[in-house]
């Protein structure tokens, strides 16, 4: 993809709406910025530097070689130099140098150090919410410097002084109150699952269950809540699969959300939100935990859960398992009867969600499934897939209307790669991507549709 001309401050005006006290207070954050916010922020910064090697090391060792500069979809889409990963990190690094390093304390601006001022804080709130923590830059960094770690730390510092986006805090508050990000109460969750059962009956003539709170089931499936309300074909895909292989399963109305927006705010919330699904698994007495089609949920559950809220010794390994791992396992064992021609007429390509590809290493399973259920499956260019995949442009708390200009520009590299395939359908196992791509398709005039991998599998299963 072509490297854009630099447009300094092109995105400076695009900022998330700030959370007010009714959203901040319930999450244990200061309801408004304290008068001594500067000292408090630096104190939090200091604390994080001592707690996370990924922060202190990555602030120290970057040599500004620029290998990452043209790898970020937000830079490629906007041309704003502060969206180059190295420049984004410098926003935090310059304050680090000024306040926490010998060189910066002695030489100040000559060592490229800068005071934490209101202007700097504004820049942080802008550009650390134009990073989707997708980690594509880290793949190309000679030291593995992970800008997501920098972004997470910066967001955590801001949150500690009551500076956080409305969208992210609102979602976390809903997850605590209702168990899901949309804020759907238990009764509505149950209703929707009944509705999907009726829908499945109409489609197949069979009694395929979409169970809720079924104690003693073998598997607790935790889908992104959007699968029950928006991406219903994905939800029905799970149901068809479990029905076909004869695994007893259930969803939980207490943990009706795979996504973990805590990851986009601070460690404390990451841990608290993650706790819910383990509590639900314990209460329902299930044997195994399976995650639905959601990208960052997979990272939070697969890589972090056992550390955050473990030891998880009451569930069978692999814990958690991804629905695509499970399905691929059954396909490999020849235990699913599939009819590929059910998906004829579709030309399908696959988008690797950042967190499946770069954090979870879930690269082969979705492709195995797609090859098994679709006749016309094609890949996008090699430097835009697998661990080099481009973010959809809306991850890590960016999926909100006021950030639309950034989101659409951030989607540009992915849209260009998609166009080269001539595909009619983009298969995506991630709820955030599924919400973002239809808007991006419209924005870029692409005539195509978004589907889940489990949607296509569900249709191909011979019941």
């Amino acid at each position: 993809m072509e490297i854009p001309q630099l447009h300094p401050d092109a995105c400076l005006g695009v900022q998330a709406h700030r959370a007010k006290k009714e959203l901040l207070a319930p999450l244990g954050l200061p309801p408004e910025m304290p008068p001594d916010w500067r000292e408090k922020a630096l104190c939090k910064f200091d604390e994080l530097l001592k707690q996370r090697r990924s922060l202190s090391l990555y602030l120290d060792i970057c040599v500004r070689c620029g290998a990452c500069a043209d790898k970020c979809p937000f830079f490629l889409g906007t041309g704003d130099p502060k969206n180059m990963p190295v420049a984004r990190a410098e926003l935090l690094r310059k304050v680090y140098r000024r306040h926490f390093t010998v060189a910066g304390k002695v030489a100040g601006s000559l060592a490229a150090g800068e005071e934490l001022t209101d202007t700097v804080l504004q820049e942080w709130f802008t550009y650390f919410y134009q990073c989707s923590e997708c980690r594509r830059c880290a793949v190309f960094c000679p030291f593995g410097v992970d800008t997501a770690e920098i972004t997470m730390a910066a967001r955590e510092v801001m949150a500690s002084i009551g500076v956080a986006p409305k969208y992210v805090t609102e979602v976390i508050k809903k997850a605590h109150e209702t168990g899901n990000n949309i804020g759907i109460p238990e009764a509505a969750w149950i209703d929707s699952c009944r509705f999907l059962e009726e829908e499945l009956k109409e489609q197949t003539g069979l009694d395929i269950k979409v169970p809720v709170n079924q104690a003693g089931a073998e598997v607790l499936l935790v889908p992104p809540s959007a699968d029950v309300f928006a991406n219903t074909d994905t939800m029905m895909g799970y149901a068809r699969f479990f029905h076909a292989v004869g695994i007893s399963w259930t969803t939980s109305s207490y943990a009706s959300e795979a996504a973990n927006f805590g990851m986009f705010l601070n460690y404390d919330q990451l841990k608290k939100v993650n706790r819910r699904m383990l509590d639900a698994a314990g209460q329902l007495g299930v044997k195994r935990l399976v995650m639905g089609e959601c990208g960052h949920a997979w990272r939070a559950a697969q890589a972090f859960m056992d550390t955050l809220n473990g030891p998880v010794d009451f569930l069978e390994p692999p814990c958690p398992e991804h629905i695509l791992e499970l399905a691929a396992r059954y396909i490999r064992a020849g235990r699913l009867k599939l009819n590929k021609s059910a998906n004829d007429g579709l030309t399908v390509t696959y988008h690797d969600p950042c967190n499946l590809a770069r954090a979870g290493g879930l690269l082969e399973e979705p492709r195995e499934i797609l090859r098994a259920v679709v006749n016309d499956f094609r890949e996008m260019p090699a430097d835009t897939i697998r661990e080099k995949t481009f973010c959809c442009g809306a991850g890590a708390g960016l999926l909100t209307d006021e950030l639309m200009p950034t989101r659409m520009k951030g989607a540009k590299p992915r849209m260009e790669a998609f166009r080269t395939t001539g595909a009619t359908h983009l298969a995506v196992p991630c709820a955030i991507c599924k919400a973002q791509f239809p808007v991006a398709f419209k924005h870029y005039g692409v005539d195509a549709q978004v589907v889940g991998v489990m949607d296509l599998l569900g249709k191909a299963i011979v019941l």
Partner: protein
Amino acid sequence: MPGILLAVILYVAMAIFVIGMGWRMYRWIRTPVPLKIVLTPGPQKASGVLGRLAGELFGFRALAKADRTLWTPAWLFHVSLVLLFLGHLGGLVIPHIAQASLGLNEQQFEHMAQIVGSAVGILAIAALVWLLLRRLLLPRVRWISTFSDYFALVLLLLIIATGNAMRFMGGLNIIQAQRFVAGWWTLHPVAPPRDPMFTVHLLLVCALLIYIPFSKLVHIGGAALWSPTLNQRNNPRQQRYVTTWEKTDGNSPASS
């Protein structure tokens, strides 16, 4: 400049370098890694991690994926730096051992040093100039460059240029240089060689040694080795990763 003063400056610079680097590296290693943040491809086994780190340390593999026009000068520069270091070690610090272990006579050894040293000296200059031009000419790289980025490049250029000048202009008496190094090493400093270029070269090296621990050049402390995205095993589901986070949290200033 009197030999004793030059020697003292070098002792001080070396001490700052060793203590400074030790302090920086100790701080990295001491800082906990709360979560598994390994990047794909995350090897499951320790042997795989070793392979990955070796690939990064010796081959700059991620950089090769990123940009060949950056990888080429970067890799060549670092390799030539290692060779120059070994050359100084063999030619100045332990000339007799080096000569004997290579099985050469004195003339052959000098001849080899002349050829290899000249080639590597030129290669290092070429790679540095390439890196400097890249920094100046590519708008995006120029935008992210700070004073210290240019300072490091220029300092290195001057060091290697003065080194090359001694070699190509033939003003340096190698025996005197060896004597100076041996005296320094055994804490019996003697006068440096006559060639003023030697003094300039050595003072610039002292500046570099002092500068390294306080700048981005601190990355020579094995940056990739300590980097959790690269040095972790991808096995969070096989083996519970236990964090040292909570313990540190209790001691942190913010929570006290």
